[in-house]
């Protein structure tokens, strides 16, 4: 019997029901995807091939749209510079005068600092190379704050590298492809950055919540004030110490927040510090090796070395045995002396006290050296 002749011939499934089936399947698939991506929420699994492939395509597309914006911005800056040259010149002269004083102080402090470092033998951090790039896409939603930049693994960028603009820290790299990287901003809800307060050396965690001013959490110590400078602390090795982050301010909700330095400048160009952790300078295998691990791979001793080892072992054993015997003898004598009653002055003892035997010499009782030890 053909299918069309059967009882299902006249059945027509309503479109709404078929659509509902697709909706249910899609809901289940979405939930599975969320659960699968939960473990990578902090880094958001950017190393995954799907995300990497998508970023590799989306980056150049974003670059096509952002390039005219940068050109227009450059034209605007040029026109503005032409019309406001006089006022800009005055401002720069005043700023230059102020900076000269800071330069002199910096030179003096650098000299003193170098002397201190030499005196104390401090091992200073090595210089960190950088890679400059342009922003090609900007995500500004409440659930993700990130940027795509047009430098990637071919320029040495790796996951975890800090990203700065000319004013301060912007975020860190959470995903790379050959030519495009994704930067997780300090304001993202998944961003956590260990920072310190420059004035008091207090430690805290800079916690993003998608607002313009991230929150300071887990503040250690008291005495925080609005206007304090915030720097990266370098704790944990994720960032080098001392990168400028922002200024402390009191939020409308009463919490301590940070006005980011990076918001003072444009968002188009950034620098990636090709920094991982200074622990990379040490060989982790050598640090993690168990003590005397080299004995397992050492060649066997020859005859002379074996004889010397045997002789040394025998001497050490004999010395230890003599020491134990002497200690036991002294203990026995002390116990015997405690058991004997002490005579009074009025009743002198009839018998003279026993002579205490001197302890036998410990040295010189070792067995003769083993044959072959001398030669």
């Amino acid at each position: 019997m053909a299918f069309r002749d059967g009882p299902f011939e006249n059945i027509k499934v309503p479109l709404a029901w078929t659509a509902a089936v697709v909706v249910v399947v899609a809901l289940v698939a979405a939930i599975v995807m969320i659960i699968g991506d939960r473990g990578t929420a902090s880094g958001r699994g950017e190393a995954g091939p799907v995300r990497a492939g998508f970023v590799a395509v989306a980056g150049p597309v974003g670059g096509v749209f952002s390039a005219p914006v940068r050109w227009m911005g450059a034209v605007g800056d040029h026109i503005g510079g032409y019309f406001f040259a006089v006022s800009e010149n005055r401002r720069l002269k005043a700023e230059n005068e102020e900076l000269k004083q800071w330069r002199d102080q910096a030179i003096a402090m650098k000299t003193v600092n170098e002397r201190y470092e030499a005196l104390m033998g401090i091992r200073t951090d090595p210089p960190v190379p950088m890679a400059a790039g342009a922003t090609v896409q900007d995500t500004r939603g409440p659930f993700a704050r990130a940027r795509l930049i047009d430098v990637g693994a071919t320029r040495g960028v790796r996951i975890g590298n800090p990203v700065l603009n000319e004013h301060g820290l912007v975020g860190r790299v959470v995903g790379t492809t050959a030519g495009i990287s994704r930067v997780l901003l300090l304001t993202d809800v998944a961003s956590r950055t260990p920072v310190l307060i420059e004035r008091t050396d207090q430690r805290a965690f800079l916690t993003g919540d998608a607002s313009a001013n991230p929150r300071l959490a887990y503040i250690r110590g008291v005495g925080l004030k609005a206007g304090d400078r915030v720097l990266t602390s370098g704790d944990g090795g994720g960032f080098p110490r001392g990168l400028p982050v922002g200024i402390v301010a009191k939020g409308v909700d009463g919490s301590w927040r940070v006005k980011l330095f990076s918001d003072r400048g444009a968002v188009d160009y950034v620098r990636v510090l090709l920094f991982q952790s200074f622990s990379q300078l040490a060989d982790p295998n050598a640090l993690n090796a168990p003590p005397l691990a080299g004995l397992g791979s050492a060649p066997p001793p020859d005859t002379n070395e074996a004889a010397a080892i045997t002789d040394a072992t025998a001497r050490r054993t004999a010395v230890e045995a003599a020491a134990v015997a002497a200690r036991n003898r002294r203990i026995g004598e002390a116990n015997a002396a405690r058991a004997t009653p002490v005579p009074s002055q009025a009743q002198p003892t009839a018998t003279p006290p026993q002579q205490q035997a001197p302890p036998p010499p410990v040295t010189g009782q070792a067995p003769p050296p083993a044959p072959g030890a001398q030669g």
Partner: protein
Amino acid sequence: MAVRVVGPMAWIGWPTLLAILFTVLLSTPVSLLGLKLPQPVWPMVLAFAWPLIRPSMVAPAVLFGLGVFLDLFWGGILGLWPLSLIAVYGGMLAARNLMVGQETLFLFVMYTGCTLFAFLLAYVIVTVSIGNAPSLIATASQVLPTLILFPIADWMIQRFDDGDVRFR
């Protein structure tokens, strides 16, 4: 006079491509006088309008793909926007018989409710998944531009609804 057929490309295909295009365009890093471009959730318009236009198996599948696109493009939690958008689509599909033919003001109220529901769902998922609640002000800064897109949803409903009498 020839009959004009409204196929899936007209009410699903082109709106999908336009939603992707506008999402990419508004992600351009532009800053004018300290203000940046708004970044609404364009597929929210489609999640609201498509079930009211007509039931379809293709539309939720495409909507799911749009959600995945948003998560990959914005770098968010994978599955966040597919779930939120499909939840809105499913709700509107269930309420379709009540919603079809209503006046614009009522549709706007429903669109607002759908948008708030989708953002609430995403807010809860992000808060639970990351362990940190996003700022309500930042959330509102994306909800409001998304609400402003309602005229597009209304136009789509007026344009494509009743295109086929079989779905009445």
